[in-house]
């Protein structure tokens, strides 16, 4: 899973039918301290009602996505599966 921040929205009218009526959000990957890593991003379907600016957990693997969507043929790889309340990292970054 990837820790990310919702950066924005993308709207499509013409698209694969499976994506119709689902919200897709642009998520930028963040480091554990909350800063954007600056390069990695994912366009993910929103399962939890996340909004722009929120820190989220993105499942970026197709088989996991198909389990959550309960559809073995869902053509989806990336899902926003959680809204993160708090992240704690030791100061040294080690366990």
């Amino acid at each position, binding site marked *: 899973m990837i820790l990310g921040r919702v950066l924005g929205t993308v709207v499509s009218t*013409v698209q694969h039918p499976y994506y119709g009526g689902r919200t897709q959000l642009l998520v930028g990957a963040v480091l554990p301290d909350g800063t954007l890593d600056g390069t990695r991003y994912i366009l993910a379907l929103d399962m939890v009602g996340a909004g722009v600016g929120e820190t989220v957990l993105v499942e970026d693997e197709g088989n996991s996505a198909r389990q959550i969507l309960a559809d073995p043929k869902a053509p989806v*790889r990336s899902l926003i599966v959680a809204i993160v309340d708090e992240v704690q990292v030791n100061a040294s970054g080690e366990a």
Partner: protein
Amino acid sequence: MRLGRVIGTLVATVKPDAMKGLKLLIVRPLTADLRDDGDPFVATDASAQASSGDLVTWEAAREAALLHDPWFIPVDHAVVGIVDQHALESPERAR
């Protein structure tokens, strides 16, 4: 999913039977704020209506094959939809 720009189309007469009837597009991958992000690739069109110049969403690997019906075909990149609206919270922060 990721963002991309359709920069061309491609026609092939000799190709696997399972790819017959599929439209082939040349897609340049883009960053979250729509800057070029790597080398172009060839994708099939699962949105059915994408054409040169369109901003699109795309998916790779097994999910690309799942976007088609029948789905178990030898395809590794596919266009999911055409983007109408792309809103970023702050383009600078997305970099």
